[in-house]
């Protein structure tokens, strides 16, 4: 057994070494990227072509410009990534038709370049790059590079403009009352959505690029003076330590930097809604935005965050508190209802009232499978239905749900394959599991673990299972903050089991924000001010 595993491991190591050798062959490309731009246009373009290859979407446009068209220049850009209006109106047109170069053309090359930069190019963001590699990188991210004969640097003109999804209401985290904007896949839109909500100069958006192949833009957003500098540094250090070739979604980042990769509980929060992320940043958390993902990560995450919905804070505290308590109940039901049902009906029948016992027993009469198998079948069928419902196109999804509801719910019971009480229990479980969306994944696993424990040991198994889960939860930490910290009484509990009125939540959560902890300075309760009506 172990020999087999060692063999496999050795094989894997050998493969890894072989692939290292392969990358050595491509070194020439890397070397080119280190070369400076020479100023000989044809040579520079040749190098660029060599690096970027012959992809059809890479455009190298050579042209002549200046008053008498005596200067040779080239624009390098990627079709589809650049805004073509901007390219023609802001770069090509002024360059080719522009007369300003006339008086400077005989002076030094550097001055010509300055002229082009300052008086001709109609763009808000022009930078200079000296290396081929830098040029290629900028072009690949949607900018246009301008090379000219005799210039030993490239002008990088920001022309990013590709088709993107507009801001829309997110599919997850719907609210009845509250903002409906959602993040999009576009990096800048997302940072702008945050910036628009926090107009403080202290909002920091530190930029990083991660991913050797994808070079994904990643931004760490936090408020300086509110967020714990230690946590900010930890987040940045972990992000920098990622050496992966691709970041396709913030989910990648989450898995690379989370504290407990082997835990079923998420230790990094996420949200699709800018107001939620803003609120978390204001509590001292750090947000991680990645290009291409409408989900923004927030860290550190507490267990309790899963039970807090943004709407809790937009509606008045009474109903919000009630709903929150219901969410805890729903979470409990979603992980333990099938297990408790199994424990009661196969081990502890004496705990069921007599009349109810007869009803349950009547449903059991003639069903062929043991209760445990019945539960497992139904729980897994539900997971399959859910998965199929998500993946399928919407019209087909409806068909699936009809088939699921009719065949599983109705026909299976009347055919006598499963008992009706079990169907009800699993249905309640399924509904309850959606009340706490952030823990749906962990709940699905816990449900099955508890189910197995309950069917082998009854109530004792459930107790042991819950104890295990509790011990595990208590051992978790997210970026140094204990996962369950706001469930203990030494932390401020204004926002845990019940949601206190906003004016009573005067301080930011303890432990997360350690500086500037005063959130508001309201009178408690706020007393309304009356302006006596004037008699004029």
């Amino acid at each position, binding site marked *: *057994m*172990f020999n087999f*595993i*060692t063999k496999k491991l050795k094989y894997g190591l050998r493969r890894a070494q072989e692939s290292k050798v392969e990358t050595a062959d491509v070194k020439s490309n890397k070397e080119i990227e280190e070369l400076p731009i020479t100023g000989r246009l044809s040579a520079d373009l040749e190098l660029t072509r060599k690096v970027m290859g012959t992809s059809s979407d890479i455009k190298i446009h050579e042209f002549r410009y200046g008053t008498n068209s005596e200067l040779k220049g080239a624009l390098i850009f990627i079709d589809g990534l650049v805004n073509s209006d901007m390219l023609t109106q802001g770069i090509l047109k002024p360059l080719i038709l522009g007369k300003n170069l006339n008086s400077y053309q005989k002076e030094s090359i550097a001055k010509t370049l300055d002229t082009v930069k300052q008086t001709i190019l109609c763009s808000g963001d022009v930078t200079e790059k000296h290396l081929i590699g830098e040029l290629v990188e900028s072009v690949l991210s949607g900018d246009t590079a301008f090379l000219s004969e005799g210039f030993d640097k490239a002008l990088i003109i920001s022309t990013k403009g590709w088709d993107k999804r507009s801001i829309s209401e997110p599919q997850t985290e719907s609210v009845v009352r509250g903002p409906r904007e959602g993040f999009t896949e576009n990096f800048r839109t997302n940072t702008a959505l945050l910036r628009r909500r926090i107009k403080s100069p202290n909002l920091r958006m530190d930029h990083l690029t991660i991913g050797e192949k994808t070079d994904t833009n990643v931004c760490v957003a936090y408020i300086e003076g509110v967020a714990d500098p230690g946590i900010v540094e930890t987040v940045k250090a972990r992000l920098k330590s990622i050496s992966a070739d691709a970041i396709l979604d913030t989910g990648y980042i989450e898995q690379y930097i989370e504290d407990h990769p082997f835990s079923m509980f998420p230790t990094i929060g996420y949200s699709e809604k800018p107001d939620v992320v803003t609120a978390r940043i204001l509590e001292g958390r750090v947000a991680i935005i990645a290009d291409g993902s409408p989900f923004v990560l927030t860290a550190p995450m507490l267990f309790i965050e899963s039970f807090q919905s943004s709407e809790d804070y937009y509606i008045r505290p009474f109903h919000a508190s009630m709903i929150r308590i219901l969410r805890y109940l729903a979470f409990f039901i979603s992980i333990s209802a099938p297990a408790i049902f199994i424990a009661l*009906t*196969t*081990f502890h*029948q*004496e705990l069921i009232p*007599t*009349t109810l*016992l*007869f*009803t*349950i*027993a*009547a*449903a*059991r*009469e*003639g*069903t062929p499978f*043991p*209760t445990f198998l019945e539960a497992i079948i139904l729980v897994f069928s539900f997971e399959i239905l859910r998965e199929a419902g998500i993946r399928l196109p919407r019209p087909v999804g409806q068909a699936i749900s009809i088939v699921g509801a009719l065949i599983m719910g109705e026909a299976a*019971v*009347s055919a006598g394959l499963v008992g*009706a009480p079990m169907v009800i229990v699993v249905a309640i479980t399924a509904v309850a599991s959606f009340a706490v969306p952030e823990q749906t994944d962990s709940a699905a696993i816990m449900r099955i673990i508890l189910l*197995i424990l309950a*069917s*082998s*040991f*009854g109530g004792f*198994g459930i107790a042991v299972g819950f104890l295990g889960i509790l011990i595990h939860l208590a051992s978790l930490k997210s970026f140094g903050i204990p996962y369950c910290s706001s469930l203990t009484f030494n932390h401020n509990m204004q926002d845990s089991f019940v949601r206190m009125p906003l004016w009573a939540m005067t301080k930011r959560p303890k432990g997360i924000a350690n500086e500037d902890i005063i959130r508001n300075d309201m009178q408690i309760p706020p007393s309304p001010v009356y302006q006596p009506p004037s008699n004029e």
Partner: protein
Amino acid sequence: MKQISRLFILASVIAAILFSSGCYDIRELDRVSIVTGLAVDKAEQPGNIELTIQIGKAGALGGGENVGAPDEKPVQLIDAVGESVMVALESLRNDNSRILFFQHNQVLIIGEDQARTGIIPYLDTFMRNKESRFEVWVLVSEGNAKDVLETEMELDEVSAVGIAKMIKNHTETSKSLGVRLLDFLSKITERSASAVAPIIKIIKEEDIHRLSLSGLAVFKKGQMTGKLTEDQSIGFSWVMGDLKGGNLSVETEKGSAQLAVMSSSSKLKPVFNKDRLQKMKADITGKFIIAELTGFKNMKIEQVIDLLKKGAADSIKKLVMDCYKKSQQLKSDIYGFGSYIYKYHAGRWKTIEKDWDAVFSNLALEVDIKVDIQDTGKTGKSPEMEGIR
């Protein structure tokens, strides 16, 4: 490598626990017979008992679409004869395709014949066996206990469940007294060694058989010695202070009334003269509201209440003394006086322990009754009283 082997060991330990020790006491509901009632009768062979169990048929009883044929009997009765409960149970188990499941047993009915012969040897099983619950109601049947379980009830398909409901209901009206197995057993094993259990009988009216609770059976040292009538059992409840409802009829020279009992309490105390037990003292408090008034012509309500208070105290006293005399006749200390003295005056108990029966049958009971009429109902008047005409 080390970690992999540790994980492997952990996984195998968990698997071993799950597969080797798990499920050992699993009971699928379709493998059990839910026993709802037990009856113990005297068997024809001397020294043997006939044990009858009533099993609720889930298929016929459960709601929803799974209900079986409409004319299917909802219960099944099986019986066996044996020299002890365990022996009889063994043979019942052998004859049944399913595990007998006693946790939902509602009643334990003892046939009068067997009760008079003695039940001590047969109660041990119910004390010892972890399956049997102490919340089971203990009853004594007039006639055969099996017949009681056989009797069908109009509303409750399972007669044992119906009997349990009936007992709860009767406890509310105080006509009878529900006795749970735990109370019964502990009273019988205490110093007083006497206990009561409600009597259930079958009333045959033409072709309808129905069940009725009436009075209490008095046990002494595990043997039934006599019966208390309904009124006597109410008197018993007054002394024990656990009367929870019901009516008290009061007769006075000016008129009569029905008083509804709201609550009652009682304090028992032995009175010693030097070291000799002189008498028992019971301080009884009763709180009532007026449920019905007849007579009391031209009287004010205050006067009526004063009159009623006196009358109520008298009728309670009559009930109490009636029952007390009966219990003295039977030489059964059903009140637990002996246990009380043993508990709080252990030294003195030793002197009277040996001839407690004789002491008890000559023991005087002093009753001090406080009556409180709290409410006159919806009206303070009555058609015949002053102020209407």
